C-alpha cells in the first residue's frame, strides 16, 4: 500500500493567503472544489513531465494537466528551449514580434478552416471577441449558447443570479439544451434575423455531470441552420483543442465552423490564446478594437510555435487517445473487480469519470480523494486531461494507486454500494 500524504505547509500558506487574498485561492484553482478539500494539496513548488510537487514535497501524477494547458509534460525541453531563446531576445517590448506572424501562419496552415488568426491571453478573451466579430459581421444582437456551457467569466458568460452579474448582462444571450437542434430551430424562428452567433464546445463538458458527445448528425444540422440563416458558427475549442485533432475538434466531428477559439494546450502552459476564422469574417474582425497590455508577449508565441510543431510531429491527439483508452480501460476493469461501475464519458483524452454505484457522488469523491492522497491527482467535479507525458509507465503507477484507493473504500463501505 502507498503511504498517504499530508499537507501542513500548504495549509500554513493558505492561512496566510486567506488574510490577504479573497478566497485564499480564488477561481478555478480554488481548493474548495476539491472534495474533501483536506485530501488535496494547495500550493505547487515545481513540476516536471507528468508530475507536480507540492510545497510539502509530495509528488503527484497530474490528471488535470494544470486544467488543460500542460499537454507535452511540464518543462518540455523543445518548448522550454524556444521560450528561453525568445525571452533572451525580447518578450514584451515596443512593437509586435515576428513570432506573431509565424504563429498566425502556422495556425492558418494547421487549421483547415483558418484564413487568419488573432492572439490574446485567456480563453475568455477570444470567446468574447468571437461574439463581437459575429455581431459586427451580422449587425444582430443575440448569441445562442448551451445551458451549462462554459466560455469564460465575462458577465454575459455567467448565468443570472451569480454574484456581480446583472440580469441585463444576459439580455442578448439565449441558452438552449445541448444536443437538441430543434431547440436551435425554435430560437431562430422566435428571433428572426436577430441571431448573430451560435457558440458551443465540441462536446458538452458541464462541471459535476457526465460529459455528452454530439449525437449523430448534431453538428451538421447546427451548421446547416447557421448557413441557412446567416448565423456565425463559433467553436469554443479551448478545452478540447489539440486533444482530438490537430486541425481543430470540428475536424474530428466533421463540420466547418466560421470561428474557432483556442487556448489551454496551444503553448504547453505559456499564456496565449487564439481566435482563428474564415476569410469572410476577416474584415469584420479587423474593425473591432480589442487588445490587452500583455497580448504582444513574444515568449508565449514562440512557445506556441514549438508546442504546435511538437504536437504535430508526435501525432499527439492519437497518442493521447490511445494512452487515455489504456488508462481508462484499466481503471474501469479495476473498479469492476471491486463491484464498482466507473463510468467514463467524453473522449478518453479529456474524459469525465464517475462511480455510478452512489448517485450522490460521495463515494466517487472519496475515491478521488484517496487517490490524490497517494499521488494520483484525481478530481471529481471536472473532466480530466491526458498529455503525451502520461506514458505506459505512468499509467501503470496510476493503476496501482487507484487499486489501493479502491481497497480503502471497499474496506470502509463493504457492500453498501
Amino acid at each position: 500500500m502507498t503511504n498517504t500524504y499530508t499537507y501542513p505547509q500548504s495549509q500554513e500558506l493558505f492561512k496566510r493567503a486567506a488574510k490577504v487574498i479573497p478566497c485564499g485561492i480564488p477561481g478555478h484553482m480554488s481548493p474548495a472544489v476539491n472534495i474533501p478539500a483536506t485530501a488535496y494539496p494547495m500550493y505547487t513548488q515545481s513540476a516536471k513531465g507528468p508530475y507536480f510537487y507540492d510545497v510539502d514535497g509530495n509528488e503527484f501524477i497530474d490528471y488535470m494537466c494544470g486544467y488543460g494547458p500542460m499537454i507535452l509534460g511540464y518543462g518540455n525541453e523543445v518548448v522550454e528551449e524556444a521560450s528561453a531563446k525568445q525571452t533572451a531576445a525580447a518578450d514584451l517590448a515596443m512593437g509586435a514580434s515576428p513570432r506573431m506572424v509565424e504563429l498566425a501562419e502556422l495556425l492558418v496552415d494547421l487549421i483547415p478552416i483558418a484564413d487568419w488568426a488573432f492572439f490574446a491571453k485567456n480563453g475568455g478573451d477570444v470567446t468574447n471577441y468571437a461574439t463581437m466579430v459575429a455581431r459586427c459581421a451580422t449587425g444582430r444582437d443575440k448569441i445562442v449558447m448551451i445551458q451549462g456551457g462554459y466560455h469564460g467569466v465575462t458577465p454575459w458568460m455567467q448565468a443570472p443570479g451569480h454574484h456581480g452579474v446583472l440580469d441585463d448582462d444576459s439580455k442578448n444571450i439565449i441558452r438552449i439544451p445541448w444536443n437538441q437542434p430543434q431547440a436551435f430551430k425554435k430560437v431562430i424562428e422566435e428571433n428572426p434575423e436577430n441571431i448573430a452567433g451560435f457558440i458551443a464546445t465540441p462536446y458538452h463538458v458541464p462541471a459535476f455531470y457526465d460529459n455528452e458527445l454530439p449525437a449523430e448528425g448534431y453538428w451538421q444540422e447546427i451548421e446547416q441552420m447557421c448557413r441557412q440563416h446567416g448565423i456565425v458558427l463559433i467553436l469554443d475549442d479551448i478545452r478540447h483543442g489539440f486533444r482530438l485533432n490537430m486541425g481543430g475538434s470540428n475536424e474530428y466531428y466533421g463540420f466547418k465552423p466560421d470561428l474557432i477559439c483556442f487556448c489551454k494546450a496551444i503553448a504547453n502552459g505559456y499564456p496565449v490564446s487564439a481566435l482563428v476564422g474564415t476569410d469572410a469574417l476577416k474584415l469584420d474582425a479587423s474593425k473591432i478594437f480589442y487588445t490587452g497590455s500583455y497580448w504582444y508577449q513574444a515568449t508565449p508565441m514562440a512557445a506556441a510555435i514549438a508546442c504546435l510543431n511538437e504536437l504535430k510531429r508526435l501525432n499527439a491527439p492519437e497518442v493521447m487517445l490511445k494512452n487515455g483508452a489504456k488508462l481508462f480501460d484499466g481503471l474501469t476493469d479495476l473498479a469492476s473487480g471491486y463491484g464498482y461501475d466507473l463510468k467514463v464519458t467524453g473522449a478518453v483524452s479529456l474524459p469525465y469519470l464517475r462511480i455510478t454505484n452512489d448517485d450522490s457522488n460521495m463515494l466517487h469523491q472519496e475515491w478521488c480523494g484517496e487517490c490524490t492522497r497517494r499521488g494520483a491527482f484525481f478530481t471529481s467535479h471536472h473532466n480530466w486531461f491526458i498529455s503525451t507525458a502520461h506514458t505506459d509507465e505512468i499509467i501503470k503507477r496510476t493503476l496501482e494507486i487507484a487499486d489501493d484507493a479502491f481497497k480503502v473504500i471497499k474496506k470502509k463501505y463493504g457492500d453498501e454500494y
Partner: protein
Amino acid sequence: MMDNASNPIPVKGFLHLKFLSTEFPKLSERLEHFLKPDQTKLEDPEYLKINTCLTLNTAFRAVKLLALHDPVGKLCGAHIPDGTLQFEVLPDGPFMAMEFAGKEITVLSEPCQRPSAVMQFKNADVANALLNGNVDAFAALAAGDVAIRGKIPIIESVNLILDRIPVYLA
C-alpha cells in the same frame, strides 16, 4: 423589517386583532433579539446556539420561498437536481435538511439518513459566522472549517439563493 423600515406582513385591516396588537410585537421583539446579533451577544455560547438555529431555520424556509417566487431565485432553483441537502453543525447540531423533488421543495426538521449533499460546519462558531456573512465561504471550505460532499450543484444553487435574502431585508 427589523429596523421598522418595512412590514413583514400586510397589516391593513388586521391591526384590530388582539394577537397582532399585543403578543405579536413582543414575539417580534424577542425574535429580533435572537436574529439580530452583535459581537457582545455572540460571545454567549447559548445565544450563539439559538441564533444559529433560528438563522438556519429562517434561511431554509426563505430558500424555499425565493426558489419558488423570486425571479432570480427561480432561475437558480431551476438548476437544482433532485435530492436532499443537509446542513450539519458539529458535534451536536442543529441539523437541517431540505428535499428537492421536481418543483417541490420541502424543509425537513429531522436529519436525513442518506442525504444527497451535505454541508458540514466544524462547530457552531463556524456555522454562525458563515450564516451571518462574517467569513469567506471558499476560504472556510479550503481550510476544512466547512466541508461539502455529494451533489455539489444543489449546494451551489442553494447558496446563490441564500444570497438573495439580504435583497428582501435591505
